[in-house]
């Protein structure tokens, strides 16, 4: 590991504008002037004088305000104090290197227990459940064998994660029950911890399934797109009927049975509802207290995909969400929004942040036939079968290629201020949009940067967040 330098500005002179732009991210959000020190992760607020001085430094010019004497010196002195204590890095410092990235250790699985779905959502990336192939359900023995493999190849790692996914996993509940029972047995036998999550469209959620999820401590991701008109325009049954009324009732009943259980009401926004802040608030008004909204995953040719011209409205939604969440929190009506729930002070270590996507290295998806793919989005893509649940990973070179796509290796990430918080983006999106793991999806980058600014502003407004 390299020595952490604490070179003050007074010792080293004026930092380079390129270094400042890369390592000191100055931004205005929710009315606050903020400065993120990219390398330490510390967050600072700026007054107008500091803002102006930093702006001038970024542009390589001298500060030419009316009071350029003492206040400029005061700002520079402030920056030196922060550099000295380590909450601000010298902008020309090289990025730190972890001791070693090391080989991948698979510790999480996405079990596609159903390559089938009882709904036909317009934007479904999974080909409405079949992932471009035949519709099928995972036999319980395939899922149990997958867990045997996970507990085995995870080696010394004690915390394991499995997500029941699809398609729609509730179409294969008998297998989910059996696989869960097997997973709990493996926990008891090995001393490892298995966190289970189930992602569902909620159409067939029933009191019996509610009880099973609660009794087995299974986190739930509940798909709903917000306002009924927005939801029903996209999320329909296989025979074309609207679904909002039914799934909203099921969700409310379920959530009310688990006051302490983990869940997210999770929506997708598209170019048709770039005002998705209204959908988030609609769900909050319904009583959901853990909410997440994500941009649609869709090809540029899709009528749902987010285009560059949609971004101003998308960004406005995030700004409005910050203000509204802070206001509701102050009034005692707060709710959690997944992407604003940053853990800034005690987040993941540097080694983790070089490669946010765990696909192929730490995480694999399992098809109903037992094939292994780097992640759920790669399922069905030619050339990405990594092995199977019986033989294990037979093509480790695929995971190694994913391991090479870290933020220090990607030119678009290397100088991005968000590199340690975004950690490189989604490999599947990069591959889909650009045909390579090494070039991230640019619209996704723009949304991620805006969302991070909003999250940091929310943290600043709420006494430092979590």
């Amino acid at each position, binding site marked *: 590991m390299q020595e952490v330098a604490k070179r003050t500005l007074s010792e080293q002179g004026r930092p380079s504008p390129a270094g400042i732009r890369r390592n000191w991210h100055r931004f205005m959000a929710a009315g606050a002037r903020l400065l993120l020190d990219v390398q330490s992760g510390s967050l600072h607020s700026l007054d107008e004088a500091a803002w102006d001085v930093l702006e001038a430094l970024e542009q390589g010019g001298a500060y030419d305000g009316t009071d350029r004497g003492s206040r400029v010196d005061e700002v520079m002195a402030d920056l030196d104090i922060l550099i000295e*204590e380590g909450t601000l890095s010298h902008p020309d410092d090289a990025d730190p290197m972890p001791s070693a990235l*090391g080989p991948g250790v698979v510790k999480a699985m996405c079990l596609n227990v159903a390559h089938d779905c009882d709904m036909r959502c317009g934007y479904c990336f999974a080909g409405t459940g079949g992932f471009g192939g035949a519709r099928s359900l995972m036999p319980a023995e395939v899922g149990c064998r997958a867990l045997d493999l996970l507990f085995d190849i995870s080696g010394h790692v004690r915390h394991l994660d499995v997500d029941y996914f699809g398609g729609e996993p509730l179409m294969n509940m008998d297998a989910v029950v059996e696989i869960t029972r097997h997973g709990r047995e493996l926990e008891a036998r090995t001393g490892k911890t298995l966190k289970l999550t189930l*992602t569902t469209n909620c159409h067939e959620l029933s009191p019996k399934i509610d009880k099973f999820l609660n009794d087995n401590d299974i986190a739930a991701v509940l798909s709903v797109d917000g306002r009924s008109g927005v939801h029903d325009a996209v999320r329909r049954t296989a025979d074309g009927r609207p679904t909002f009324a039914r799934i909203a009732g099921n969700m409310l009943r379920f959530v009310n049975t688990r006051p302490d259980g983990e869940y997210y009401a999770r929506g997708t926004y598209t170019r048709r509802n770039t005002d998705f802040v209204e959908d988030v608030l609609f769900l909050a008004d319904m009583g959901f207290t853990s909410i997440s909204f994500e941009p649609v995953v869709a090809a540029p040719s899709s009528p749902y995909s987010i285009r560059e011209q949609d971004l101003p409205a998308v960004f406005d939604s995030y700004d409005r969400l910050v203000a509204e969440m802070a206001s509701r929190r102050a009034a005692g009506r707060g709710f959690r929004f997944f992407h604003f729930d940053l853990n*800034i002070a005690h987040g*993941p*270590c540097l*080694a983790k942040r070089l490669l946010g996507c*765990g696909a192929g290295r730490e995480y694999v998806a399992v098809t109903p036939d037992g094939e292994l793919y780097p992640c759920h*989005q790669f399922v069905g893509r030619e050339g990405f079968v990594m092995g199977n649940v019986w033989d294990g990973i037979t093509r480790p070179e695929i995971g190694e290629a994913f391991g090479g796509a870290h933020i220090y290796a990607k030119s678009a990430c290397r100088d991005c201020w968000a590199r340690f918080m975004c950690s490189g983006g989604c490999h599947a999106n990069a591959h889909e949009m650009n045909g390579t793991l090494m070039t991230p999806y640019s619209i996704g980058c723009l949304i991620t940067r805006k969302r991070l600014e909003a999250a940091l502003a929310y943290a600043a407004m709420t006494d430092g967040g979590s």
Partner: protein
Amino acid sequence: MNTDTREETKHVKTIIVADLKGTAATGGCRECQTSCQSACKTSCTLGNQACRK
């Protein structure tokens, strides 16, 4: 990192202290939740993860 005894700043105020650089030497235990950067999964994104060490 000690921010308790330092000289008071006038124009730049620290809101949240983090020490990502310091984890270059101490991190990498791999006990944290596996992250997924895909927009189609809410279950395991990096942003709100906590270090389990």
